[in-house]
Structures are given as C-alpha cells and as structure tokens.
C-alpha cells in the first residue's frame, strides 16, 4: 500500500464528509439537491478509486450505479418534484445553522473516536474509509433529524446510504450481493418515496410533515 493511493482515498473519503457538512449548511431546497448530487459524485470517485486500488472490478459497477442513479437521476427527479409541488421556498431548519455544524463536528469526532481504536488489525485503508463512512452516516442521520421537510428528509436518508456504500466499498472483497442490494434498495426506496410524495400531494398541498403529523389518534379523539 503506497502512500499516494492511500492519500487519495483518504482525500476522497474526507471529501464526502466535507460535502455532508455542506448539506447541513444548505437552507434552500434546490441548493440542497445540488449539493446532494455533488455528494454522490464524490462517492462515485471514492468508490472508483477503491476499485482501482483493490483491483475489485465489481466496484466499478457500484460506482456506475451510484453515478447514474444518485448523481443524475434522483437529483433531477427531486428537482421536478419540488417544482411540481411548488415548495422552492427557503425551508426552516431546527436550530441555527452554526449550531448544527458544531454538532456535526462533534459527530465526526465521535465517529473517529469510536472507529480509530477499533480496527487496529484491519488494514489502514479500510479503517480510514470506515471512520469517514461512519461520520457520513451520522451526519446524514443528523440531517434527517434537523429538517422538517419531506424532500430534505429523503436527501438526508440518501446521504446516509452514500455513507453505507462508502463503507461497503472500503470493505475489501465484500461480495457483490451487497452492492446490488443497496442499489436495489435505493431504487425501491425511490419508487416508494415517489409514490408517497405523489399520494401525499393528492391529499396535502405541502410535503411538510407536520401537516401529516397532525392526524393522529390523540388529535382525533
């Protein structure tokens, strides 16, 4: 394992974390979608690089899937949905942006704290990727937590799954079954979400989930 390859892998993985921070930072929906596309793009690069240095060619497939679906198709689809629903106004964020960034930093620290001492035996590359992947996962979850809006929720979830893909790619020789399942899951996830957004629009004017949250046993009785 020569240093340059390691550095590049490290750089790309770290890049994903940075982009996740950007996701946290965005307050406008379109910008959020675009940044997510960027996020997926970085993922593609990272996975591709893993494929080259591991000589694991199935990872190219993964990279391709990620590129097509997450970097191109889904963002455009989301653009259309947002436009259709007419919700391209600034979306409210729970708590200040700065506060969220700070929490995000804490999460990254936590990820590294948990991961670094752990995988002392596994090879360095996997460990680094894993640490960053965990950070991305946590940041995605954090994004889901701090946003009200359905679309941004979906985006948060998918950024989380990007983190998973990164981790899977980092795991040396992980069978193809998993990647396929991921892609598969993402596909289904999109379909279901699309269905949902569609139905939701049938019934509500906004995709704002608090509108949906207001139909519950307690409120009904």
């Amino acid at each position, binding site marked *: 394992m020569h240093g340059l390859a390691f550095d590049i892998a490290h750089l790309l993985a770290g890049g994903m974390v940075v982009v996740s921070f950007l996701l946290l930072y965005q307050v406008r929906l379109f910008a959020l979608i675009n940044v997510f596309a960027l996020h997926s793009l970085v993922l593609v690069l990272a996975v591709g690089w893993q494929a080259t240095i591991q000589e694991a060619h199935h990872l190219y497939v993964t990279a391709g899937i990620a590129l097509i679906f997450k970097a191109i198709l889904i963002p455009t689809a989301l653009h259309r949905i947002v436009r259709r629903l007419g919700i391209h106004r600034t979306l409210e964020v729970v708590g200040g942006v700065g506060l969220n960034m700070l929490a995000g930093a804490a999460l990254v620290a936590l990820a590294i704290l*948990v991961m670094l001492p752990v995988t002392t035996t596994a090879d360095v590359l996997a460990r680094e990727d894993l640490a960053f992947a965990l950070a991305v996962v946590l940041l995605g979850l954090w994004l889901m937590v701090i946003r009200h809006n359905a679309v941004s929720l979906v985006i948060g979830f998918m950024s989380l799954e990007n983190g998973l893909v990164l981790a899977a790619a980092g795991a040396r020789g992980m069978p193809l079954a998993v990647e396929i399942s991921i892609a598969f899951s993402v596909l289904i996830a999109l379909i279901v979400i699309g269905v949902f957004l569609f139905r939701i629009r049938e019934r509500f004017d906004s995709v704002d989930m608090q509108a949906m949250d207001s139909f519950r046993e307690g409120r009904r009785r």
Partner: protein
Amino acid sequence: MSLPLLLGLPVILLAVGIHAVTTSRRSHRSHWIYGATLIVCVIALGLALASLLMDPTPATLTLPLGLPWLGAHFRLDALAAFFLVVVNLGGAVASLFALGYGQHESAPGRVLPFFPAFLAGMNLVLLADDAFTFLFAWEFMSLSSWALVMAHHQEPANSRAGYLYLVMACFGTLALLLAFGLLAGSDGAYDFAAIRAGQATPGLAALALVLALIGAGSKAGLVPLHVWLPLAHPAAPSHVSALMSGVMTKVAVYGFVRIVFDLLGEPVAWWWGGLVLALGGVTAVLGVLYALMQHDLKRLLAYHTVENIGIIFIGLGLALAFQANQMYTSAALALTAALFHILNHSLFKSLLFLGAGAVLTATGERDMERLGGLIHPMPWTALAFLLGAAAISALPPLNGFVSEWLTFQAILLSPELPQWLLKFLAPAVGALLALSAALAAACFVKAFGITFLGRPRSPAAAQAQETDRYSLWALFILAGLCLLAGILPGLVVDSLAPVVGLLNGSARLVTQHDQPWLTLVPVADVKSSYNGLLVLLFMAFSGAVAAFLIHRLASSAVRRGPAWDCGFPEASPTTQYTAGSFAQPIRRVFGSVVFQARERVMMPPPGDLRPARFEVKLRDPIWEHGYAPIANAVVAASSRFNYLQYLTIRHYLSLVFGALVILLLGMALWR
C-alpha cells in the same frame, strides 16, 4: 393407592365444565352439573379422609406434563389430605345447595362451566408437589373464581370487584413466584423435594417468608391486602361465595403453611413468629370492625372471613415462635388450634354464606335494612343460620369456641418464650383476639337479629318463602358438623395429629380419645380442660328439667297480644332498630378512631315537612393511604408519558439518533 384417583377427579371435573359449555342450551343441565360435582366431591372427600385417618404416609406421582425437564409432581401427605377434606367437604355441600339454588341463577351459562373448574383448581393446588404445578393450579383457581365473580357482570360494582380481585391475585402470584424462584435457585430445582433438601441461608429464608406472607396473605385476605375480598366474595353467586370464603381462603393458608412450615423447614429467627402474630391480631380486629360497619349481609360475612383468617394466622404465628425456640409441644398446640380453626371456619362460613344465599333467593335482598322477620316464613333456614352465627361467635358448645379456646391455651404458653418482644406481644394479641371474639358476637347478634328477627322492613321480606329441600339439607349438614366438631373436639384433634406431626418435627399433642368423657386436654389436665359434650348435656338437662317442671307444676298458658314496648302502641316496622343503629354504640366507641366515623343529623327548619336526615360517613384508612396513591401514581405516570404517542417523525428520528449516539459514546468510553 388413592393419589391417582384423587388426580383423576379434577380431570373429571374439568370434563364436566367443558360439557357445561357445550350443552349450554339445555335447561335441566344445572341439576346434571351440580349432581356430578356433588358426587365427585363426595368421592374425593372419602378418599382424603381415608388417607388422613388410615395411612398418612406420603405418596408421590410424576406425570410428563408441565415443565418438560421437570414433569408435574404430585404428592399426597397428611397436610394435603386434611386440606382436601376441607375443600371437598365445602365443595360437596355447595354443590348440594346449588342443586336447589342453581335453579334461580339468572346467567347459568356463566356459572356452570366455571364451578367445576374452580373445584378442580383448588384440588390440584393441594396435590401439587412442584413450584410450577402449584402456581399453575393456583392461578387457574384464581382465574376460574374470577370468571365466577364476573358471572353477574352487568352491575358495574361486580365488574370492579372482579378487576380488583384478579389484579390482586396476579400480584400475589407474582410474590409466590419470586419466593419459589428464590428457593429453587438459579438452576431451577422447582420440585418441592429438592427445595426441602436445599437449605436456604437465613437471609434468603426470611425473604421467602415475607414473600410467602404477601403472596398467600393477599389471597387469604390478610390486612392490608384484604381490600379485594369483601368486594369479590359477595359479588359471586352465593354457593360460590361460600366456596371462595369458606374454602379458597383455606387453600391460600395451605400455600403459606406448605411454604413456611414444610419447604423452609425450621424457622431460623424468632421474629418470624412475631411478625405473623402481629399481622394476625391486627387482621382479626380490623376485619370484625369493618364487618360491624356493614349492612350488606354477604359483605358482612366476607369481612368476617378476614377476621377468621387473622385468628388462623395468630395460631400459625405462635407455632412459628415456638418452633424457633424448639418448644415443639407448645408449637403442636398452636398448630392444632390453627388447623382446627381452619376446619371450623370452612364449616360455619360456608353455612352462613349458604344461608345468606337462601335469604337472597327468598327475598332478592342482600341489604339487611330491607330485611327482617324472616324467622317466621323461613324457620329452618333461621335455625341453621342461628347455629352458624353462634358457632362463629365462639359460643360453647359449638365448634368455633373450641378452636379459639385452643388458641387461648397456646397464648397462655407464651411466657415460656425467651424473647421479650414475644413475651409482651403474645398477651396483647390475646387481648386483640378476645376483643375480636366479643365484637364478632355483637356483629352476629346484629346480622341474625336484623335479618331474621323483628318485623319485616320491606314487602319482599314479608312475602319470603322457605327455601327448597336441597338447600335445607346442605345447611343442616353443615350445622350438624359444627355441633359435632364442638362436642367431640378430641376426635378432631386426634385426626389432626398426623398433620401437626408432619409440620412440627413429628411432635404432636397427646392423644385425646382415651380421655374420660372425651374431654379435651391439650397439655395436662391440671392446666386446662374442656368438655363440650358434658357442657351440652348439662345445658340440655337443666334446660329440659326447668321446662318440664315449669310446664308441669306452674302455668303453661300463653296469650298473644300486641307488643308492649313501654306503651307505644302499634309502632310501624320502621321504628325498629336497624343494622346501622344497632352498630351505632360500637361505631362511636371504635369507629371514630379507626374509620374517622362522622355522624350528621340534618334537621329541616321548623315548618318544613321534609323528614330529618341522619347520615354517617366512614372512611377506609387502608384504601385511602395504601391503594389510592398507587392507582393515582399509575394514572399520573401514564398521562405524563402519553405525549410520546403524539410526537412528529422528526422527534422519533431524534430518539433513534440519540440512542445511537449514546451507545456509541458508551462504546468509546467503555474501551
């Protein structure tokens, strides 16, 4: 060998119950069912008596049921046999009574299936020889009796009673479960033989004792765990009430005796006895005081069950105290007293509840304030009820007196105890016992006098009819047994001897049946003796002689006329003393302290024609300070947390997120 037969009988009972479900359309089925239970109970009674008197040597049997690696163990020893006698005697008489009473049942479909199941459950509890089978049968017993309590579920009060009953039963079962878990150890040696063999450390044994006291006590109705009892027992149909009050509480006592005297072996600390003794005394007095405040006949009887359970536990507590000091002869006396009272109470309490049932069918009333004068339309029921009342009031020469007399004798032996606390506790408890006996007499003067004597207070009471012959047979069988046990106590004591020996390191009372004139001599004839037979003979003799002489030599003429009543002519029946007014002096003496009884007279202003109103406010301290707070706490907590049902998805996500972060932090710090 009678154990397999005794095991077969509950199965038959269950089959009968299932048959009752399937044929619930027919009309004559109640005869069929109760007849079947009657026969089965009589057979079981015979077998149990045989094994108690002929060969009390334990017999065991294991069936491949229950816990697979354990199997269902069953055992028939003297203790089980004695309680089997009690249970099946009560069951048989209740069935006989129900042959007539069951005809008036409004919802037979809700009684017939569960009555045999209830009997089966009680029989199985007594035969069980491992923790699992025991608790299985125990809980089954509670469940079937709950179904019977819920038979008339359309009155809200009954539904509430059933709820409270089942919750308390579950609580008690949990306590017993913990006790057994403690005794069985972590590798689950649940069969009683293993538990007997294993010696628990003092701390564990004490904990097990307390748990057993809670578990069995909550079923038997020890204060302060008694609250469900006076609600649930009256709610059931009367023959079931008789079983629950007269018999099921005894099964609960059996559970306590089995665990504490048999499984735990020797009591290690003297304070065990003190604890049980004090609880028993408090229970006895509080129970009878509660009873005095009631004017619902069946509830009054139920509260008396609480009192008698207290008396039984006094005996058991003394036995524990004596055993802890290796005074086995004294312990034998105390145990005999307790067991004797168990038998007696099952007799007269069943009798009284059945009598109340007869009154209920005759008048449709349970409220004594609306009864009265029933001795005229139903003299036989009145006679039987009177005997039961005299017996429960511990009047010689009936059986209630004998067991209380034995208890007093046991208390009189307490000065030999070395511990100071026990020295002082015993006579104090004796005073409580005497007080409860006297109050019981007062309470049954009230119960019998207001219900059967005087003039009818309501049309229903005026038009009452004597009950059917089945019921009368049942009543008089029990009454006769009360008298027999009262005048031949020595025989009963002798047949209790094997049980006492089993529980008391094979120490037992001296054999009684060879005493002159069948006198009862518990310790030595210089100390104390009692001869119910002679007392009866003397009384009969002197009474008969007096009657004969008077009617022969003096006048025997009788003239009827209106009551004089100090010259108040033809007062209306409402001027009679009522249950409330009869209890008023005692309420003023005791109730004002215990129940914060408050009396208010509301006089209308002059010229206003409305009648003056008199009302009494009683407060139940145990409910107010023990149970209400718990219920309120649960309600408050559930309302407090209820908002968690109505959060937004984001909040739920943050819950997951929080859990994840916390666990990860834990990981990080754990390394």
